[in-house]
């Protein structure tokens, strides 16, 4: 059996979604992008805008990772290997830096 045939056999064992599913995810991503641009057009206050935009970005990232990158169809062990440690590191960076940036702002002469 050739290497290509073996790879195809392994690939067939995974449920990888259909064209309809991928087109649906793509449409959702476009819709969320349009909503983001609409929010920018409204020019909401910065804190509200940032909160909503980061929330939408996280939803878009989850759609891309789950369906386009197939993580939803992989073993739970792979998800547990990759995602929690990464989220922990990002949270640590946020906890370390954000309070300091506000402190720097308040130290400026008014």
């Amino acid at each position, binding site marked *: 059996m050739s*290497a*290509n045939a073996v*790879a*195809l056999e*392994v*690939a*067939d064992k995974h449920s*990888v*979604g259909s*064209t309809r599913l*991928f*087109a649906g995810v*793509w449409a959702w*991503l*476009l819709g969320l*992008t349009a909503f*983001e*641009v609409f*929010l*920018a*057009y409204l*020019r909401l206050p*910065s804190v509200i*805008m*940032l909160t909503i*935009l*980061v929330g*939408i*970005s996280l939803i*878009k*990232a989850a759609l*891309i*990772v789950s*369906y*386009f*990158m*197939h993580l939803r169809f*992989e*073993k739970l*062990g*792979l998800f547990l*290997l*990759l995602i929690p*440690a*990464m989220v922990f*590191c*990002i949270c640590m*960076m*946020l906890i370390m*830096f*954000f309070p*300091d*940036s*506000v402190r*720097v*702002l308040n130290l*400026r002469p008014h």
Partner: protein
Amino acid sequence: MEGIVESPWSGGGSPFAINSKKLGMWLFIVSDSLTFSALLIAYAYVRLANPDWPRPFEIWPAIAKSTLMTVILLTSSLTMVLGVAASRKGDVKKTVRMLIWTIVCGLAFVLIHATEWYTLITKEGVTPWSNPWGSPLFGGTFFGLTGLHMLHVTIGAAYLAVVAWGFGKGKYNADHVEVSGLYWHFVDLVWMFIFPMVYLMSVTLRSGS
């Protein structure tokens, strides 16, 4: 005993039921996502700490152009995932065609981005250390973030060209296409954070607001 040996936690030959190339790409993506996270957090830090941070992007043309770039990148992810699906079915022609469309979208993204940089540098006078609007850190963070992303897109387009050529010739298999797809989707994913944080949060305020 047999059950223990077959358990995903037993450290067998393939505990995650994926090949080593794919696991390697996933680990690279985690490491690269931390690089981009650090850059985005640094951007947010200097932006928050500088009250005179500029908001130079008008809805037309800057936001319209970056929205078009977002649509192009999302469409490239769709063609990529369809290419991966075709490669798994052994459809060589469709796989190569989808990969070529993905490369075309990637190059279109880079071209539009390059024209935007050209306008900012030559017409607006923005450099990595100065700009006519406010905090000089704006240029450094903007060019740093978008430049690193543009580099990733350019490298991705070259990577996909090699994979498309190799798959068409029968040198590479469906695993290679899938691993290159993971990289491409990651590049798309990073833009989903750069677009709102750098562009939409910097829309010019209406006078009086």
